[in-house]
């Protein structure tokens, strides 16, 4: 699937302005999980602000290594000069992709929302296939999707179907929130979405789940900005009106939140998405707020639990602190340690590509080692990708903090 055409790339003049503040301090180089484990990726400083000065607008992209950037955004998170390094790298990916196309694995995985929809419609067969070693190996040979990378199984009924039968509370006094659930809840874990709604309602929120589609974060991550833009636009058309009349837009998945609240405006230049940014809040911060406002005391845990919390890279990129840690630590019977061990290595769909499997494992090793060292009962993380990767690396059950909370009641 390689078609070479010389096309002027997406917003170059904007990209030019971005790298001026870089003083070459090298702090981003140390933060990059990919550069730490492989020499093939030259690191975020070189890939971003260094190389951008050399990228001619109408020249052939020579960034053949740019697909090794996992779009984890660790570089942009730590940059003291406020250089949007990850954004620059994604724009470079977009430019490269426009000229040289994508590998099949990249195309399939970035369109995971379509694959997942299909898979969920045929859940029993899809799940069985994914468990079959032979089929996974065949898929790796044919599509480049790693035979060993964790893939989520599909639910028999999609989330949007499930909530058709559910009565959404009409508590007029409560906060009105719109819940953006994302593909994982829709196709793989609708039960998680139901838990989220239950929790929100329990703590005084009136929840609406308007029609919505995939956030497009995987497409942005591989530089397929055109396809991502279509998804962004459709999300806007479906949800903007409802959100305008609501108090909050709530997310339980950090990557979905990142896409809608930051990437839509910064990378896709879809400025109407400002409404998403302005109204957004993550689930745990909202629950904490409601718990404090209502002066509620959370019940104790049914049995003492030793938990380890894993900070998703995209959660750091949101700049929200660690609300899940605060809420869970307020529960009696819960002993929670923050792992702070870096990137799990999956980076969304990055680690699912066969070519990246070794890199992915090398990155996640630090997290796995820390978990072995701590030996918790469970690992907690808001990010579904991290949970899948951690479970597959360590065998420990990995839960969304909402699941821990839901179990209290």
């Amino acid at each position, binding site marked *: 699937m390689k078609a070479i055409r010389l096309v002027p790339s997406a917003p170059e003049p904007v990209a030019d302005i971005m790298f001026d503040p870089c003083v070459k301090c090298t702090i981003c180089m140390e933060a990059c999980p990919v550069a730490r484990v492989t*020499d093939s990726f030259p690191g975020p400083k070189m890939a971003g602000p260094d190389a951008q000065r050399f990228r001619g607008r109408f020249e052939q992209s020579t960034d053949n290594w740019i697909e090794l950037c996992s779009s984890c955004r660790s570089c942009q998170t730590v940059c003291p000069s406020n250089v949007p390094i990850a954004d620059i790298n994604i724009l470079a990916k977009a430019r490269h992709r426009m000229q040289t196309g994508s590998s099949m694995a990249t195309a399939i995985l970035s369109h995971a929302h379509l694959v997942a929809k299909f898979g969920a419609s045929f859940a029993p067969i899809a799940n069985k296939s994914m468990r079959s070693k032979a089929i996974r190996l065949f898929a790796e040979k044919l599509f480049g999707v790693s035979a060993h990378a964790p893939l989520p199984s599909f639910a028999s009924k999609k989330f949007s179907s499930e909530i058709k039968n559910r009565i959404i509370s009409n508590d007029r006094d409560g906060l009105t929130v719109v819940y953006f659930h994302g593909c994982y809840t829709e196709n793989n874990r609708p039960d998680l979405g139901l838990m989220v709604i239950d929790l929100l309602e329990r703590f005084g929120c009136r929840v609406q789940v308007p029609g919505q589609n995939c956030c497009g974060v995987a497409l942005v991550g591989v530089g397929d900005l055109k396809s991502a833009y279509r998804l962004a636009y459709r999300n806007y058309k479906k949800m903007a009106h409802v959100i305008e009349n609501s108090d909050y837009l709530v997310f339980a998945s950090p990557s979905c939140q990142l896409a809608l609240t930051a990437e839509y405006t910064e990378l896709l230049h879809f400025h109407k998405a400002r409404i998403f940014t302005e109204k957004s809040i993550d689930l745990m911060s909202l629950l904490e707020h409601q718990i404090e406002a209502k002066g509620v005391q959370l019940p104790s845990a049914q049995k003492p639990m030793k938990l380890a919390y894993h900070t998703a890279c995209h959660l750091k990129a949101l700049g929200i602190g660690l609300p899940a840690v605060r809420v869970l630590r307020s529960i009696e019977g819960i002993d929670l*340690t923050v792992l702070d061990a870096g990137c799990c290595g999956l980076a969304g769909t990055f680690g699912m590509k066969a070519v990246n499997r070794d890199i992915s494992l090398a990155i996640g090793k630090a997290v796995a080692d820390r978990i072995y060292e701590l030996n918790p009962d469970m690992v907690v993380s808001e990010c579904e990708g991290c949970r899948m990767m951690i479970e597959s690396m360590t065998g420990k059950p990995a839960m969304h903090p909402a699941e821990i909370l839901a179990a209290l009641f």
Partner: protein
Amino acid sequence: MIYDVAVIGMGLAGMSAALSASEMGATAALIGSGPGTLNLASGCIDVMAYPPNQDNLPVDDPIAAVRQVASEFSEHPYAILGDKAVAKTLSWISAHTAAGGWPLSSDLSKNHRVLTAVGRFKITCLVPESYLAGIDLPLYKPLLILGISGLRDFSAPMLAEVLQMKGYKVRSTVLQGIPVGFQGHSLGVSRFFSESGIKQLGLQIRGFVRPGEIVGIPPILPPMPDIQYFRELQKVAGVEVFEIPTLPPSLPGIRLSKALRARCVSSGVELWEGVHALSMEESGGKIGSLLLAAGPNQRKLQAKTFVMATGSYLSGGIRVKGDTVIEPIFDLPINQKERMPLFSTSFLSSSGHNAGKLGVGVDSSLRPLGKNGRPAWENLFAAGDILAGHDPLAERCGGGVAASSGRIAGMNAAVAAGKGKKS
């Protein structure tokens, strides 16, 4: 959530403040974009090497120098902190880094000369264990400087030649065949030295070294706060080994930063990474909250007290706007005199630059002063490079000031928030 103490800045001062506040039972938020300048510095903690207005001779006794500076320069942060607080801080920091897996020497009685990659010596006080064998090198001590072919920030042959010229008994050898990657920087090389690589290196050293020699290596051990890598290397090598700092990325600096960060995390400090503090909001005559931004996402963070450890120019704690220097978050006055040239015409001279001495003035509790000379905000404290009255780089006192003012500011903030009693 309303924190007891919110600390802005995740460098040495910020981490010290958050840690000390947390130790006093305060809930602490540590806000910042990244690890601060620790990643770029040598991993040592400077206390005082070149007191202001003195000859170019470095001082031998850092704590005595602190006392002297405190008595002579009333605006120097050391005058506010006092030598006892500084000494206590250094022990406190050493204890923490040791607990974090990366011990610093605890000898505060004298400054040490640490060999650097250019062949000059950095005068500093607290050094990591991996530097110890090489501090205060006497001329008669035979040295072997080990290089790695392709490592671009370090040249063993050059260093050996320069030291030889200065009268040292030194030779060099360059190891071949170690995968350095196409960029040849220390981070890439350190990949190789994680497990089996250390053993290999140790054996190679053992093979090359002559009796009586000690071995200087570039800083290529893993950037993890785990002294075991170094101890294992020395054990296998069978000789004393010491690291020699060079250009950033500084692996010893990264290790120190990570060690302190781990201490913060295990102490219950909550990290708010990836955010820049834009401005503040008042509430009832005090600072009520900070406006934090991560790209287009903005969040308000509420706290009872605040510690600004925002650093200086590189970290954005103070900014140059034309001929003026400003403090961008709280708009605090900077001690810049009228018509004072910010920069000297010579880049590197012993008098440094006026810009280096600029910052916010503080009262005896480390509360920054407003335009009227009184504390600008009752619940705001300041620590680190942002403080006026000292030149952290030219004097080589940045680390000591940062850690000490950080610890004291954190304590004062915790007390002001109603936690613990003032010491």
